[in-house]
């Protein structure tokens, strides 16, 4: 098949994937690294800062890559991370 794929699809604009907002409750993190390891889009990495528990919580490398699959939320043993669609940012907070 010809390498048309070099150009973006015409309907690119219409089919823009949802934007994600990732929330890190850093001080709840115990640093198991599951969210980092199992993120299919490799959105997270271990940060250098040390949290209240004395571990390196994750930090966000590129939020735009997040596919909103929510696995980090589901696999976190410490309820220290969750994701939401950008739009619904406000009501997710507080």
């Amino acid at each position, binding site marked *: 098949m*010809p390498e*048309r794929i*070099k*150009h973006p*699809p*015409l309907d690119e604009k219409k089919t823009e994937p*949802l934007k994600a907002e990732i929330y890190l409750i850093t001080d709840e993190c115990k640093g198991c690294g599951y969210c980092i390891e199992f993120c299919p889009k490799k959105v997270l990495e271990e940060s250098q800062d040390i949290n209240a528990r004395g571990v390196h919580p994750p930090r966000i490398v590129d939020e735009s890559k997040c*596919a909103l*699959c929510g*696995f980090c939320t589901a696999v976190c043993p410490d309820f220290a991370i969750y994701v939401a669609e950008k739009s619904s940012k406000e009501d997710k907070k507080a």
Partner: protein
Amino acid sequence: MAENKKPEAERKADDIRIGVYVCHCGLNIAGSVDCEEVAKYAQALPYVVLAKDNRYTCSDQGQDIIKNDIKEQKLNRVVVASCSPRLHEPTFRKACEEAGLNKYLFEMANIREQCSWVHLYDRKGATEQAKDLVKMAVAKASRLQPADEIEVPITRKALIIGAGVAGIQAALDLAETGYKVYLVEKEPSIGGMMARIDKTFPTMDCSICILAPKMSDAGHHPNIELLTNSEVSQVKGYIGNFRVKVLKKARYVKKDCSACGECVKVCPIIAPNEFDVGLASRHGIYSPFAQAVPSTYIIDMNLCLNKEGVIVCDKCLKACERQAIDFDMKPETVDLEVGTIIVATGADVFDPSVLPNYGYGKYPNVITSLEFERLINAGGPSGGRLLRPSDLQIPKRVAFIQCVGSRSDRSGKLYCSNVCCMNTIKDALLIKEHWPETEIYVFYVDIRAYGKGFEDLYKRARKEGVVFIRGLPAEIIEDKKTHDLWLVGENTLQQELYKITAGMVILSIGLEPRKDAEAIQRLLTLSRTQDGFFMEAHPKLRPVDAATGGIFFAGCAEAPKDIKDSVTQAGAAAARAGILMAKGKVTVEAITPIYSADKCKACGLCVKVCPYNAISLDKDSKLIHVVEAACGGCGTCAAECPFGALTQSHFTDEQLLAQVDAVTELEPEKKVVAFCCNWCSYAGADFAGVSRMQYPSSARIIRTMCSGRVSPKFVERAFARGAAVVLVAGCHLGDCHYINANYQTQKRVEKLWKKMEQNGMNRERLQLLWASAAEGEKFANKIREIQSIIDKVTPQEIEKGKKVFEKALEGG
């Protein structure tokens, strides 16, 4: 059957009357072989009562000559030196039979594929080789025996590989006739190329509108079993009795899918849709297009977030009310038994990104004719509006460039792709129909409007004001700001340079063989023409039959053709397959074992090596029993028998040894005695010829059905008579046409190597080659490599070989 062979001495010369016919095949053979000389040479060979050369032996006159000679000259053996027996042996056998001569008394010398075509510039060598080949054929012919064929039943089921319009049509025809059909398609949906085309020429029908009903018929027909997202992984057996394995790749969506599309709404993965040539997007879970059959969705596991059995994303799982999604689905292998196979694998389109001067892939507004089909299609990514990718505006001026990937050595495709001219004319008219103001230029080499209603369409296009300019642009230059395009080239009619700007350029790309054509070729032991499309058994008389019995072609797999021709050919292929299955039985070649009980020691070795379990040992009577219907005809039992109690009909030890002797009579130290199996290595050698691959003329090929037939004593005999090199060639291990017989070949060759080494012989002189029907190049290279060995072999080494194997001179 008992062998009634007489020792050489007892044969009276007048018993055997051989006629030899050397074919010029126009200039195909005569071009590099002196056919008259070969005929003269043949005349002098033992038992030969007449030898003739003529332009086309396969022509009716050519055949009539043979028939008359059989009657009037009382010929009881016939030798034709022409093309490959894989092509014309049936033709001549038929001729012999019509003249009342048992067809097993016919023998062929392949002086085209394996001689004239591969020594185009070595007339002398070619001619010498041709003589040897004829001599070998004659030697064998003098020992041929008449034989009767037994019949085996045909499985009344058909396998069709590829479910484009050709495959679908063939499937429907056979299913309607009442045969069970397995329709295998590697894509998730059937429909093939035609499903993506907007309108068909010359009638301007909506392509999918006329295809969709056929698709759903195929999907619902009680006699058709669809195997989509599947690929044929193995084919064993023979005409009427193929055993096929089909790999059904996991779809990850079960049949329960109601195609409601809820899953798509939640799938976070977005990727270009192959069906729209990347012009539109699809999701990780998707249905390729609205009319897809089956409508069951599919998950693209390369894109899905869930890998290695870990479900990270379960959005579709939750969205699916029918719970049809199953991430644990595993690929499964389906075993089929069919009597006939139709190859309808279609063609790929040429990828113009290899032509830098047209800037395809670089300039957004340079698109292919296939992309155009999607753009102009109302169901396509732009809703049928001809939007140019750079700014999504409708261009004021459009240019078509013809023969992109066709009829040009630069792109490596010398042939005409057959459909592009009319396709462009159709496309031009479509544009005019929607946006009459648009200026259209077509740059062409020749306009080929040969078909029914084609010329009218062409005329209409001209009338509508489409401008046809002879002479392809040398280059396309893009205006960086506007992304408009400049086409620069020479108008070869006016002999003047042109520089024309256009908002959009459509490359009218050609068709080329499927990337996986070689895989199919190996699976089914087919032949391909030089341009890589599958080769029919006869271009004129058997245009839809493959050389391998029970296999037929439909659609672009055989050559580029338009929808009408594909459908026509599909009908033909279905009819041909139907004829076989209607008969319900097929005669198997009389190439089964010949057993001489008196020599049998009931050791049971043959029982062990038979791939078909066709031989059983009766402990009490100390005799073996052969089930001929079950026998595949590889002859490995004959090669295995240490006591000469078994040999293979039509490939007897005597006949094969006679061929060896013939080769080694003169200057054996300059020759390689090559044993090639009919299905792979011999076909490979033919392919090398078809592809005109040039290699030294030292090879003398002896055809056996399977390399497993090559008994060590044949090899030993060759060395004992001073052959420089012996080559044993067979199918790749695992690809053996006779299940696993070639593993015996390997064992035997290794034994011989040991023996040679123990006796201080250079084992290089015995070569083992695994080459498929597709690997002509590999075969040619092997012969070149062997030539260098021949050149090194010293007279002393030759003598050594003679001594080591002198025992082999006895008997035969």
